[in-house]
């Protein structure tokens, strides 16, 4: 009876470190291209599905990619700002319905998306728990945010200052969590949604404070004349919005001048889309209109160009690793010369040792394959989250 597998197994178990190294080596080589493939396909799916469902995007002139990445995937790179005027222009054109986006601030690491309720209808986002936005200062959480921060309706979430050195006086806003969305398997899962007006509150453009004309404390007033009252820094602005103080919140200046990062334009039909695009061709325009699909297509082309380079690198690395493996086995054959002699002197063919080595390789390959399958399973199962982790945020 020949039981090469058993002996090979004992050999592998005895030389644990060597076997583990070999398995790791083989698995890595196999897992890398596979994982890369799965993740790229998933990122393509995520990027495209979102780009395809967002017909047009209006934003400041500049990097179209930054604009799309920020507006569609809530990337941290904030594009140049445009004003609410852009939203109104789209609306007044009668060619498309606008949805304003102000994706600039963060709350505990998650992007705050300032928009209107229309965004939820447009993206098909459903409230799973609680309710949708109603009052200024409220927020609705993407499912992943709620899960990660352990928040539920009734809790509060503090917005983060834009930078550590933010001295301009942007007070963090303690938002009321009023709802949690159903998972949408998109960037919306990691977003904190607020009404665009609430985003302006975070910025300090809309704010609430005591009525300066009724202030009794003289230390709050720096200067007072017939036309103007200047308050000192001691005047506290409200950092929470509640039933008592909501009445004191007010806009400064014309809301039309208020900032946005982009406006999603939903054209009535293809013809309207073309006409609307035509209106942004002019060189004097400080805004641009982009079709996210085209931008993402360009990005994907680049990604896949890089992927083909990585693929060839993997092939070379794989070959090198294969040669190393051959060397390892050749060396182990020499190390086992004595065993080979013993086996021969006991009365069996020198060829047996080759079979033992074959069995060893087979076992290593099988274990590696199992490992690769396990990793592949995990990667395929969590591809969505992984892509979001690595690619989008």
């Amino acid at each position, binding site marked *: 009876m020949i039981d090469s597998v058993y*002996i090979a197994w004992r050999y592998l178990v005895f030389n644990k470190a060597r076997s583990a190294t070999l398995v790791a080596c083989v698995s890595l080589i196999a897992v890398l291209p596979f994982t890369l493939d799965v993740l790229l396909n998933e990122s393509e799916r995520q990027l495209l599905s979102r780009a395809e469902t967002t017909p047009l995007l209006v934003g400041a002139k500049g990097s179209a990619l930054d604009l799309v990445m920020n507006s569609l995937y809530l990337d941290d790179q904030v594009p140049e700002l445009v004003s609410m005027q852009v939203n109104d222009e789209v609306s007044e054109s009668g060619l498309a319905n606008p949805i304003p986006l102000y994706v600039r601030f963060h709350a505990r690491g998650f992007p705050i998306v300032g928009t209107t309720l229309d965004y939820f209808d447009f993206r098909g986002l459903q409230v799973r728990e609680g309710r949708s936005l109603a009052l200024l200062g409220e927020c609705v959480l993407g499912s992943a945010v709620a899960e990660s921060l352990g928040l539920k309706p009734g809790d509060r979430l503090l917005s983060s200052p834009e930078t550590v050195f933010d001295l301009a006086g942007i007070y963090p806003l303690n938002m009321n969590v009023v709802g949690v969305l159903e998972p949408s398997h998109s960037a919306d899962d990691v977003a904190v949604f607020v009404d665009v007006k609430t985003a302006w509150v975070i910025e300090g453009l809309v704010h609430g404070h005591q009525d300066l004309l009724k202030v009794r404390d003289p230390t709050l007033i720096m200067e007072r004349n017939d036309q103007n009252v200047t308050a000192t820094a001691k005047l506290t602005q409200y950092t929470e919005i509640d039933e008592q103080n909501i009445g004191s919140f007010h806009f400064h200046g014309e809301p039309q001048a208020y900032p946005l990062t982009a406006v999603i334009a939903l054209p009535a039909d293809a013809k309207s889309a073309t006409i609307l695009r035509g209106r942004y061709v002019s060189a004097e325009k400080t805004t641009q209109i982009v079709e996210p699909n085209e931008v993402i297509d360009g990005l994907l082309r680049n990604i896949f160009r890089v992927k083909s380079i990585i693929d060839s690198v993997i092939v070379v690395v794989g070959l090198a690793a294969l040669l190393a493996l051959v060397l390892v086995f050749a060396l182990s054959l020499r190390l086992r010369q004595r065993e080979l002699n013993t086996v021969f002197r*006991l*009365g*069996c*063919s020198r060829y047996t040792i080759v079979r033992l080595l074959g069995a060893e390789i087979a076992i290593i390959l099988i274990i590696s394959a199992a490992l690769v399958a396990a990793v592949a399973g995990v990667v395929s199962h969590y591809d969505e989250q992984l892509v979001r982790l690595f690619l989008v945020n």
Partner: protein
Amino acid sequence: MIQIESLRFQYPSGDFHLGIADFKVASGEKVAVIGPSGSGKTTMLNLIAGILIPETGDVTVDGIHVNALSDAKRRDFRITNVGFVFQDFELLDYLSVLDNILHPYRITGALRLTDEIRSRAIALAEGLGLGDKLNRNITQLSQGEKQRAAICRALMARPKVILADEATGNLDPRNKGHILDALFESVEAHGASLVAVTHDHDLLPRFDRVIDFQDFRAEVGA
């Protein structure tokens, strides 16, 4: 029963040659071979086992002309008929004591590993005081224990010929006695022929016959 007639052997390098005119060991006979190092004792054991092939002459074991067999047949003959206790044990580090004893059964189609064989191996090891070490690794054994494991492996297939090359070297007198007991017991139980190369003159009286290789061989050269 072992028989060597008009044998002449030379290593391919040509630096050593050996001639044996006539050498016989009957079934059940225990023969000790003594002589200085380099006199060709191990070479003769290898010739009997069919590990080495003579240029001329004949080696017969139980009527089988060993050097007339094909390579494959000779290997099968060796693993089934010859129990060889090597000078330096030649056990495999990565196998346990029991797996080393059963090793021949796993590397050739000529032997079959059955439950009976397994219990025989355990009984044999217990007989040689290795009962509590069956699952130990070889590296954890003392010299004496390794030697006993090597003997177990040699005796497992109940060979017709037992060849022992310095089987009792490096052992204390009590262990030497045990080893010899085990070898003799197997000879008596299965009518095997034992050829033991030894430097241990204290043990010689227990053998049926002692051959001083220096006097016995027909020719030797370097």
